[in-house]
Every structure is written in C-alpha cells, then in structure tokens.
C-alpha cells in the first residue's frame, strides 16, 4: 500500500504554519492590489524588478544572520551582538575604502587600500568578535544573553572609534556590486544569501554538526557524557554567527555606500531571533529548521514591504508589523497546532469509519 500523507503530522509542524502565514499575507496583497506581484525586466541594469524580488533581496541581511542565530537558538542561547557586528563590519569596510577624509576628501570611484582588504578585514574582525562571544560562553560558561550583551553595547562604540566618529561615503563601483549589483538577472544579495544558506545547510546537515548542536541544545550534560565536546560546538556556532554578521554588514553598507555606526544593523538581533522563532525553532533549544528560518525572514520582510507598498503611515509601521507577527505566532502556538492536528486526524478517522460502514 502506498504511504499516505499524514495531515496531522503536517498540521503539527511549525514550518507548515509559517508557509500558511506567508501565503495568507500574499493572498491579501493579491486581493487588494494584484500589481503587487508584477515583475519586470530592466535592460539598463540587467536586473529583474518587482515586489517579490525586492522582498527576498531586502530580507538578505536578516536571513544570513538568522542562519547563525538558528544554531545559537538551537543551543538554547541568543546572540544579541549581531546588529552591532553589522555596524563594525561596515565601518571597517568604509575605513579601508576611504582611510581618511582629510586626504581623500571627495568620495569617488576609488579605494585607498586594495579591495581584498576591504572585504577580508571586516570579516576577520567579525570572526574574532564571534570567537570572543564563543569563548565567554563556552569556556567562561557565561549565559549567552549576557556575554553577547557586551559586544551589543560596545560594538557600536568600536565602530565609532574605527572611523573616528565620522561617516564616510564612497562611490567605488566594485563595492556597489555587493549590495546593488546583479548576477544572473537577480540582485547580488539574493545570490550571496543563496550561497550562504546552502553552505550552512551543507555544513550542518551533511556533517554531524547539526545533530551535535541539537544534542547539546537538548541535553548538554548527556551530550558531554557521550563524548561530544560541547564547548567546541558552542564556540564554533558563535564564531560562525559573527562571520555571518560580517557578511551581512558588507551587504548593508554597500546598499547605502556608507557606514552608519548608529543605525547600521539596528534591531537586527530582534529580527533575526524573530525569523528563527517564526521558522519553528524553539527558544528552549533543540531541533531546528533552517528552511523555516529562511521563511521566517521572508515573512518579516513581506510585512515591511506590504506596509510601504500600501502607503500605510510610517508611524503605524511598527504597530502593523507587530500585529501580523502576533497573528503568525498564535497560529504556530502549541494549542492551535494541536487543534488542527486533532481535527485532521478526527476527520481521517471519520472517513475510515465511513468507508467501513
């Protein structure tokens, strides 16, 4: 006999409900303004345009960070420093592009130091900062939320120091490609995100790393007694999250072609945590879903775009976002999922009973 789809298991999955939520939001858009979905090709830039493309494009920064955040949360922790690391990454990149405004006083299509340094140094510094978090949490046994609070608070200060409190701008075109260019008709951030998501997914699922993360997140002591080096797992996860924040920072600063120590990556930690939670990973740690997290990030961005597109007053944006997110979270809550799971299994029982009779 062919195996039938188990609807009650599907109803019980949080990822299912993330898909349902996204579909509902888009359905509302379709109903109100069908042109929300139009996609057009712009020959001058060689890029596809449209709201759907833009949603995925603009969700890139959060999606990339949220890949690391998923693992952090699966371990039962949180990383609050990611937003500050975005600012640090941007500040360093711009520092190497302009070095000193008093000498290179007009922004133009040039870079003071080689482009390789512009890309590599920010990433290396973010990796080091991730390692700092990882060290405090694994060896120092600090609570993640406290340990990462340190860099959350002082990261933006470090970014200020790097640029002497100045805001640089640049017009260096290779740098522009990262956030505003296109590859294969698609905006570059989408491609970068796809590569990052694929790389992280392969790293955690094609090696045993993901299982170890889940194992440590569920029961750290039992994992240690099974021979898993829990400290190393924790260290790697926070280091990875630092690295991903660095990538995200490069994309962000390339979009604005500037550094902004105060606003770059502002509240990214909250959006990333939210994306992970909407994606179905529990804050208590354990099983995680990277696909769910990508969906969660896209849902968050869909809401923002929808708000802009429908011209809802900017002051109401936050409240509107909150309402939709509240609905999504309720849809995913244990009682609601169980309710639908029970209903679908009850219906199946009824169908079976009917077939017998």
């Amino acid at each position, binding site marked *: 006999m062919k195996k039938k789809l188990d609807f009650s298991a599907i109803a019980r999955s949080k990822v299912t409900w993330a898909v349902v939520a996204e579909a509902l939001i888009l359905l509302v858009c379709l109903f109100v303004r069908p042109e929300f979905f139009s996609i057009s090709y712009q020959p001058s830039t060689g890029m596809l345009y449209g709201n759907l493309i833009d949603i995925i494009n603009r969700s890139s920064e959060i999606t990339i960070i949220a890949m690391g955040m998923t693992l952090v949360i699966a371990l039962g922790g949180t990383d609050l420093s990611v937003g500050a690391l975005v600012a640090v990454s941007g500040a360093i990149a711009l520092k190497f592009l302009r070095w000193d405004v008093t000498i290179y006083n007009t922004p133009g299509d040039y870079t003071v130091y080689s482009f390789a340094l512009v890309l590599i140094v920010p990433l290396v510094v973010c990796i080091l900062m991730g390692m700092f978090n990882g060290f405090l949490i694994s060896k120092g046994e600090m609570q993640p939320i406290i340990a990462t609070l340190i860099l959350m608070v002082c990261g933006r200060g470090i970014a200020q120091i790097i640029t002497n409190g100045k805001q640089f701008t640049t017009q260096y075109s290779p740098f522009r490609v990262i956030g505003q260019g296109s590859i294969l008709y698609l905006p570059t951030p989408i491609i970068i995100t796809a590569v990052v998501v694929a790389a992280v997914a392969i790293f955690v699922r094609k090696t045993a790393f993901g299982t170890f993360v889940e194992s440590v997140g569920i029961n750290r*002591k039992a994992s240690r007694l099974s021979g898993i080096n829990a400290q190393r797992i924790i260290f790697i996860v926070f280091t990875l999250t630092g690295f991903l924040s660095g990538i995200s920072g490069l994309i962000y600063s390339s979009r604005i072609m500037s550094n902004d120590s105060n606003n770059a990556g502002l509240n990214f930690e909250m959006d990333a945590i939210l994306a992970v939670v909407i994606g179905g990973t529990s804050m208590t740690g354990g099983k995680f879903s990277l696909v769910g997290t990508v969906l969660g990030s896209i849902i968050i961005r869909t809401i923002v775009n929808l708000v802009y597109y429908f011209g809802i007053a900017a002051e109401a944006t936050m409240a509107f976002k909150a309402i939709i997110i509240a609905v999504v979270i309720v849809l995913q809550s244990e009682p609601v999922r169980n309710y639908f799971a029970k209903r679908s299994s009850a219906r199946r029982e009824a169908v079976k009973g009917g077939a017998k009779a």
Partner: protein
Amino acid sequence: MPENNLLEMRQIEIQFPGVKALDKVDFTLRAGEIHSLLGENGAGKSTLIKCLTGVNRMDAGTITFMGNSIRPQSPQEAMGMGISTVYQEVNLCPNLTVAENIFVGRQPMKHGQINWKAITKRAQELMARFHQDIDVSRPLSYYSTAVQQMVAIARAVDVQAKILILDEPTSSLDDNEVQLLFDVMRDLKAEGMGIIFITHFLDQVFAISDRLTILRNGHLVGSYDIGDITKVELVTQMVGKDMDTIFNLKRASVAEDAPYMLNASHIGSPGQIEDISVAVKKGELIGFAGLLGSGRTETAEMLFGAHRATSGELEVDGKKAEIKKPYDALVKGIAFCPEDRKRDGIISDLSIRENIALAVQARKGFLHPLSSKEQNEMADKYIKALGIATPDAEKKIGELSGGNQQKVILARWMATDPKVLILDEPTRGIDIGAKAEIQRLMLEMCGEGVSVVFISSELDEIIRCSNRIIIMRDREKVAELNGDEATQEKILSIIAEGAKAAGGEAS
C-alpha cells in the same frame, strides 16, 4: 483509631504511566514520635510524601489527619493544614536575610507596611529556640549549610506545623551538625510534633527514630519499633531478594593470566573520592556494592572522566592513560552508562537512531559523519540485538519506556566497541524482564572479552553476575570479595558493620 495517631494513611495507591508507584501502602504517624521512612531509590518514599503534601494525586486510599479525612491538592494547602516539608536541597533564597527567608510571603504588617522590627525580633526568638544565636539580618548565604537547614526547619515549624517532613536533611551535614539537628528534632518531638525522617544513613535511623517503615518497589514491607529490628534485618528488608529464582545466569569465566584492561591506582579528587584502587581484567565483571551515597557513582564518574581525578594513576589496556574528560575515555575504549538516564543519558528529542549513533559519531568527530546507511544499519542491528520495542528507528527516544531507553543507551556504547564498559545502576526502575535481558547482555559482553564494571543496589544481581565484588562505604573501599565466596548475608553484614562503626563514632 488510637488516640495518639496524628496521621493515618490507608491503602494508598498511585499509578504512574506504566508503573504502579505505590500499591496499597499503609503509614501511621503518632504525635511526638520520629518515624523513619526507608527504602531504596524508587521504592516509593518520595511518592508517598508527595501524596501527603499534595504534589501527587492518589488514585485510591484515604488520609486521616487529626481525626479528619483530608485530601490536599497542593503543597500550600497541606502547609495550611499543618504539614510542613523541608526538602533535601534547601529551597530558600540565599540572597535574602535569614529573617526575610523565615517570613517571606507572610510578613507581619503594620499600617500596610512590612513591620521589619517585628520580623527581626521574632526571627531572633525563633532561631534562639533552635540554639542558634545568629544575626538574622545577615544574608542566608553567609551561614553554613547546617544553619541554612535550621532556618528552613524554623520556617517550616513556625507555620504552626503538626507534622514535619525532613527529606534527607543530613546528606550535606557533618557529624556535629547532625547532632545539632537531632537536638532540635528531639525538642520538637517533646512538643508533640510528629516528624517523618527520610535518610539513607542507617546509623542515623537507629540514633534518632522511634519507629520505622520500610517500602520496596512501591509495596509496604512493614513498620517496626526501633528495638524490634536489627541493622542486618533492616538492610535485608530494604534490598529484598525476591528475584533470585527468576534468573539462571552463569558468571563470566576469566583466565587466571588475563591482562588487566583497566587499572586505577589510588585515584581521587578532593571532596569526592579520596583514594580508591580498582583493577579489572579482560572479560571480567566487577560488581560495586554499597548503599547509595557510598561513593560508587563517584568512582565510576572518575574512571570515565566525567569528574577529573586529580591524584592517582590510571592504566587502560596496559598503557598509562590520562583521562580529563569523557571524550578521552571514549577514545581509549571506556564506555559509561550513567545512573540517571533521563538526566544524563538520553537526548530526549532525538530519534533512537541518532541516540545510538551519538557516541560513535562523537569519537569520529562531526567532520566525518556516518552515512545515513551506516546509521540505519547500526540502529537496526541494535534494535534487533537488544530487543528494543519500537516500530522503527526514527521514534524519539523520549517516547520509549524506561527499560527501552536504557537499552538504547547501552546500544550507544556497545556500538563504540568498548574495552571497558561501566554501568551505573543499569537495571534501576525498569521492569523485571528488561532487567534480566540487560544482565544477560552484560555477561555476553564479558564472554566477548569486554571488561564490565557493574554498579547496582540490588545485591542479588551483583552476586549473580560478578567475578569480584567491591564493597563501598562512606566513600571508601571497605572490602573486596570473590564472586564465589560472596553471599548476601556476608555483604550485608559488611555494610551493616560499617554502619555500626560509624554509629559508634558519632555518639
């Protein structure tokens, strides 16, 4: 009902999923007596107490308290009736002062504000009653565990308690502190309070109690006046030997000249085990006997590196080995099934397959993953070999019964092909069939040349399976017997004599 019966529990039954935790248990407490409640872990002592304090609901039975039938639904309700409990871990707030701890939640008020003066005064008086002349305005953490224990008792008694339940109150106290606690208990007894005393220290039972009640596997074994029972009888009753007839297993045969696989000499770490030597030959099964808290688990954890030994030397397979963490032990071929499998063994949300593959994978490192084919084969092999009852390998381990969980943990370690297998209470809390299977597996592995270290509280198991038996008491090795010459009586008398010696020192 006799006049002085403060509390009568009749025919108490409690059913937990898959196991009857209490089966028709009777318990009587008189006013002005200290009554010890004894039994091994899982015997049902704490379930009985929780039933009295309203934590667990009973499925059948009656509780009569001071002539009235009661059925407490919550600890608060029980406390309101005058049934107070002091738990093993002092559950007070170390950062609050002594006085605050005593009165938290029921502060005396004056003009709608907390009357700090009255709190301090009353707390001082109360502590004086317990012979504790201390500054009650200091934080609780300033004082020793014993004083903290007194504060907990003071708090429990000050709510007009009629019954005081002390759950393992002496486990972290030294001899003088225990005497201090006993003085307080005698004072309270003289005031007419009924005290239920739970402990694993048998000498303390004989030093302080008037009567005792023994439970085993959820059944009442009996209640005795303290003069009517000897220590040996008591231990025999607690441990029981009703399983003898069910098994028919043969000990492993070990060649005289078999090499030592694990040889620990004088290993120890301060505050745990000070100095112990264990040597296990290839294919040999060594049993660890002794009461709970005698240092069996600590020894096992030290051999495996769960707690690092700071002194002594360790040899594995004839080579000097340094084991700092479980991973080191794993690489050297030592395996360890911990005592508390729920807390330290299973990864509840992962599947049986993932749980079985975990240790092998940990040894290989995450960069060298087992293919899903290898994992499935490994899981299927052990599900079949150990008779793990499950529809498939993808079921979450948390959803299995205790015995099957234990088999999965055993499979996790068997898959690593260990040279030395350390099993800490592998048969506790599982049904008799699974128990027999696990014993059979242990002996089979010995036959294949694995050395097994077997810790159990059930003496008949130890005697049946072990080539040699190490008897632990008070965190020291007190005797080592050959399997052939060991009898239950012999082991019990060694444990009891030890207890007698300790009693002599204390008084």
